[in-house]
């Protein structure tokens, strides 16, 4: 017999503190930290190739979404202070600077000799009229008209309203308009005509002019006192009273959809259908004063700011909320609207938050909530909103909060609540399996009844009345209290199933620790990371009212258009999965389990570990603009080539090609595919921006690359590079030599016989042979050495043990010599620093255990200085010989090692204080070796034995 003990609380009177909500919008900042040359941006344009150009107070920037290229005075600019940038119809990029105007073609800066007289003027705007005439607006000397190699200067003397001209524009009637500091001037049919406040302008200080793209007779005017529209007869003015964010309007920009954006000295406004939508630093803009605005071709708006660099507005399709904007906790687990249409946000640790009319209200445990750790919310057909918490179950009804006590409902960790068609509820619990709850009674289903696992996250009733259950042991289907289990064998990609959904067609979908899957009637068909989801873990899956699926992963949200996904047309298929990540404005990439909701206005809410994002599907158009693929660097064995069809020597066979794409919406989500003719049979897909081909065989090659943006649209263009690798003339006998050398296994072969090989690239060959020997022989010797160690570990008689020790030592000695040789002829270790480091290492190993005190005198060396391989090799081997001699024969305890160099020649000294070991041994093989090596590097060696044993080596740091 169950007793009903409900705690009823009147929540309307108990709700916590109100807080005015301030959501943020997705802005991306490009300022000094991101590579922009300066944080004050005067002007931005996008050129016809897609690059963004930004004129800043110090330097002109060219930006492809990933990398900045800079232009300063040292690159030929008349001044590094750039004011404006403009692309003319012939493709020239004009830049206006503190000291005149110039143009850029193919990244080179050019001066137009006819414009030299302009160099004393500050050029603040540049324009090309429909007849090809160039106009240069100056800060104090009117406007300069340049056509047919002639210049005309117009100032107030000619009828211009002011001599400081801020902008130039043209309307469809062929009139040229000038925005001056003292009024608006029109040039029509050779006559100047000016407009002032008395004519209806709100201010005489005019900043920008933009003809209306829908009707180019109409001119929109940015003034220091609001926005004005001129239709040829009258001015219509818009001020802060109409909702404009700030009266001081700096710049205007039209967006393709007909929105007009206004950059002002106090944020930005969007003007649409007569009303303003405002964004300031509170909404995420990174500065208050905005100098310039421009729409790029992908539909994003760029703002050039004073002190905040460029701010890229990715669109108003995301609105973000976190603790900074009023949430009580950032772990957002669930959302639901209650009967009155108020949206409730559940957090894990911060209780519930309701949001109505832009105000947050809070419901915490202090107000009677069972637990601040809320997992799930669900509003049923009886208008009750259920709350599943770590510590139990409650619901809200008519403003009352009703907590179910432990006797009524004894289960904790409520992860999911659904309503049954037949009445009653299905409650998913984390530890106690599935519970059927019929108001007063419960029935529990656990592994004992046939559930695959007692951790149940969600359930859904299918059209045939059976219940589908997501558990950590796979999917279960319950029909008449009997269970059928679907696991990996039935196509479930991972048995950790977190969310379950019945779509509009009645198909069952699941999201798991390894992507999502749908049930085809017999088994599950998966869609995973490998198929294009941005992350492996599928935290939730939801279908919106337009039929689009939304999948929350550990690495962003995927928008899945299932019809496109199963399209036979590959280009359509490519656009089926679109990725939304923090780069496009999502608040965080890690979604929460089940945290997705479509509200009654058909807006989507995505709960993440760092807050919640509200998504406006109607504002989101995806990114239909294809990125533009380009090759950024072509290197052969480390050297860059810029020429077309480069012909390379055989040994430049390590090819590395860097590529990228021009894309601004999500430059880091661009995918590439490339192929090298004769090498790659198919396109190779990558998200990296480099392709490497080590040791390419000789031949002619063409490398091609294409790029795909985050919405799946492929570039129209294919960037390519072509080159030819010459065949090596010595190929066959090189191979033969390698075999013979390897078989002989005698390193002396190439030390003794090097005259024979001098004609070929000796260093390279040595490295190869030595490395190969080292790898093969070295590995075998290492095996032997380890084997001997291993055997020694067992018990055996000491004589036997001793030989084993010797075998091990001998093997290691050979490996060490091999290592030294490989090192000494490896061209990467070619600085004095590398050499002296290696020497110190050697001494550390050889002399340190013998208690020698070693003093180094390398202070005067330039450690970065390069030394030729033969010098390094011979010097090092002489050094080794000397150190070995000391280790073997010296009875001293001090060693000095020193080296000096003046850049062309050097001297190297090793000196020990030993007194023994003079005589026969030192004149033996070791010393002869040293002499021989010294000769090889065209040096001399001098050996003396006063006050110990001293070796001085002199030579040149150059080869000749």
């Amino acid at each position: 017999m169950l007793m009903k003990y409900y705690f009823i609380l009147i929540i309307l009177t108990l709700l916590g503190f109100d807080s005015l909500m301030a959501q943020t919008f997705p802005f991306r900042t490009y300022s000094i930290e991101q590579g922009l040359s300066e944080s004050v941006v005067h002007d931005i344009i996008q050129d016809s190739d897609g690059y963004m150009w930004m004129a800043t107070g110090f330097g002109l920037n060219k930006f492809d979404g990933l990398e900045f290229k800079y232009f300063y005075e040292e690159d030929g600019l008349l001044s590094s202070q750039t004011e404006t940038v403009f692309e003319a119809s012939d493709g020239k990029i004009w830049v206006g600077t503190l000291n005149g105007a110039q143009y850029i073609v193919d990244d080179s800066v050019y001066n137009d000799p006819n414009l030299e007289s302009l160099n004393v003027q500050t050029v603040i705007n540049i324009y090309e009229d429909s007849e090809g005439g160039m106009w240069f607006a100056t800060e104090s000397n009117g406007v300069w008209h340049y056509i047919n190699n002639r210049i005309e200067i117009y100032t107030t003397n000619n009828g211009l309203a002011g001599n400081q001209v801020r902008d130039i524009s043209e309307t469809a009637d062929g009139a040229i308009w000038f925005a001056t500091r003292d009024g608006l001037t029109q040039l029509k049919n050779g006559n100047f005509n000016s407009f002032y406040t008395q004519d209806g302008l709100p201010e005489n200080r005019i900043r920008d002019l933009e003809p209306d793209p829908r009707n180019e007779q109409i001119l929109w005017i940015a003034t220091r006192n609001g926005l004005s529209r001129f239709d040829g007869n009258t001015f219509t003015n818009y001020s802060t009273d109409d909702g404009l964010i700030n009266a001081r309007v700096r710049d205007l920009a039209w967006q393709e959809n007909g929105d007009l954006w206004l950059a002002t000295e106090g944020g930005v406004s969007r003007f649409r259908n007569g009303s303003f939508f405002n964004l300031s630093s509170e909404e995420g803009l990174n500065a208050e004063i905005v100098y310039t605005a421009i729409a790029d071709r992908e539909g994003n708006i760029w703002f050039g700011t004073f002190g905040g660099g460029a701010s890229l507005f990715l669109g108003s399709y995301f609105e973000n909320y976190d603790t900074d904007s009023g949430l009580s906790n950032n772990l957002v687990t669930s959302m639901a609207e209650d009967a009155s249409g108020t949206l409730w946000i559940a957090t894990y640790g911060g209780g519930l938050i309701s949001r109505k009319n832009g105000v947050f209200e809070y419901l915490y445990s202090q107000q009677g909530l069972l637990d601040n750790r809320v997992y799930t919310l669900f509003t049923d057909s009886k208008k009750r909103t259920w709350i599943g918490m770590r510590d139990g179950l409650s619901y809200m009804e008519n403003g009352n909060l009703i907590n179910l006590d432990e006797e009524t409902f004894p289960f904790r960790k409520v992860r999911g609540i659904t309503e049954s068609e037949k009445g009653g509820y299905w409650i998913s619990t984390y530890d106690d399996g599935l519970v059927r709850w019929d108001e007063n009674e419960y029935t529990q289903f656990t592994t004992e009844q046939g559930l695959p696992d007692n951790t149940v996250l969600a359930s859904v009733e299918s059209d045939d009345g059976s219940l589908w259950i997501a558990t950590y042991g796979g999917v279960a289907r319950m029909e008449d209290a009997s269970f059928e289990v679907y696991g990996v064998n039935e196509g479930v990609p991972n048995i950790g199933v977190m969310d379950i959904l019945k779509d509009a067609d009645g198909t069952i979908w699941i999201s798991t620790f390894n992507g999502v899957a749908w049930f085809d009637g017999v088994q599950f068909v998966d869609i995973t990371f490998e198929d294009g989801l941005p992350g492996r873990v599928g935290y939730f899956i939801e279908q919106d009212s337009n039929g689009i699926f939304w999948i929350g992963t550990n690495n962003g949200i995927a928008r899945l258009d299932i019809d496109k996904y199963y399209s036979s047309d590959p280009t359509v298929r490519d656009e089926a999965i679109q990725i939304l990540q923090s780069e496009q404005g999502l608040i965080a990439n890690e979604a929460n389990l089940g945290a997705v909701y479509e509200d009654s206005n058909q807006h989507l809410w995505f709960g993440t570990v760092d807050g919640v994002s509200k998504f406006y599907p109607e504002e989101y158009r995806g990114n239909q603009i294809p990125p533009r693929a380009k090759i950024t660097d072509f290197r052969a064995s480390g050297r860059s080539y810029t020429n077309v069809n480069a012909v390379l020597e055989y040994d430049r066979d390590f090819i590395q090609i860097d590529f990228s794409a021009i894309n601004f919406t999500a430059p880091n989500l661009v995918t590439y595919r490339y192929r090298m003719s004769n090498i790659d049979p198919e396109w190779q897909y990558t998200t990296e921006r480099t392709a490497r081909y080590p040791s390419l065989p000789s031949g002619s090659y063409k490398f091609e690359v294409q790029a795909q943006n985050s919405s799946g649209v492929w570039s129209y263009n294919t960037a390519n590079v072509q080159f030819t690798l010459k065949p090596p003339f010595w190929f066959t006998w090189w191979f033969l030599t390698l075999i013979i050398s390897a078989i002989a296994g005698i390193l002396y072969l190439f030390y003794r016989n090097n005259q024979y090989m001098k004609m070929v690239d000796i260093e390279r060959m040595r490295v190869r042979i030595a490395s190969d020997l080292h790898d093969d022989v070295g590995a075998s010797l290492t095996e032997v050495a380890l084997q001997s160690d291993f055997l020694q570990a067992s018990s055996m008689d000491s004589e036997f043990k001793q030989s084993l020790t010797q075998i091990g030592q001998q093997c290691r000695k050979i490996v060490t010599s091999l290592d030294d040789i490989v090192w000494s002829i490896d061209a990467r270790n070619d600085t004095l620093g590398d050499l002296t480091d290696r020497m110190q290492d050697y001494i550390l190993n050889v002399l340190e255990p013998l208690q020698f005190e070693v003093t180094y005198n390398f202070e005067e060396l330039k450690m970065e200085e390069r030394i030729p391989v033969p010098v390094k090799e011979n010097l090092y081997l002489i050094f080794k010989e000397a150190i070995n001699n000391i280790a073997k024969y010296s009875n001293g305890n001090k060693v000095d090692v020193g080296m000096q160099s003046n850049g062309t020649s050097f001297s190297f000294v090793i000196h020990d204080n030993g007194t023994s070991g003079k005589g026969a041994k030192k004149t033996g093989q070791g010393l002869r070796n040293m002499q021989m090596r010294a000769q090889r590097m065209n040096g001399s060696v001098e050996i003396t034995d006063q006050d110990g044993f001293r070796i001085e080596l002199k030579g040149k740091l150059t080869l000749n």
Partner: protein
Amino acid sequence: MAIVGIVEDNKKIRDLIQRYLDMQEGMQCPVATDTVEEMLEFLEEHQHPDVLLMDIQLPGMSGIKGMEVIKSKYPDIDIIMLTVYHDSHKIFDSLKAGASGYLLKHTSLPEIKESIENLLKGGAPMSPQIARKVITHFNDQAPKKNENSMLTSREQDIVNGLVDGLSYKMIADRFDISIDTVRAHIRNIYKKLHVNSKAEVIAKSLRGEI
């Protein structure tokens, strides 16, 4: 009981090291794979080893990349890099990827065992070559000024000492600290190197460099 894992594609070397370590008291080597991928699979389902010996040149994922992956998932595992060459460039790359030390492959079995024990006791080896690279690395980082990831002056002293060719003992004497303290400092330098390199990677990716 120290648990050791091995990733090495030369079967003979791998087996020898595994068998030897398994025979040692206080050591256990339950897993030796020839690729990083297999090791990752093992780690998902079993108790983690305390120490991993890892080759650099491996089929599939390289040892350096593998180190990054393993370190990011299981930061507690100490990784010792096994290398054929005494190649300071590769060694340094692996240290940046999170290795706590390195061993040449022909190092004798008792020495391998000793190195593992030293590592577990908190020691880590650093040669002059590596020390010099450490200095250059941190100097390059200096303008970015992340206090937590820069070297302390004592750490700087120790690296400078190593570049001068001093032994751990001599460094300890010079600064009047114990050899174990020197080891602990070096261990910490490796950690910073790893943290620093991670920060570098993030910064680079923000700038779109990678």
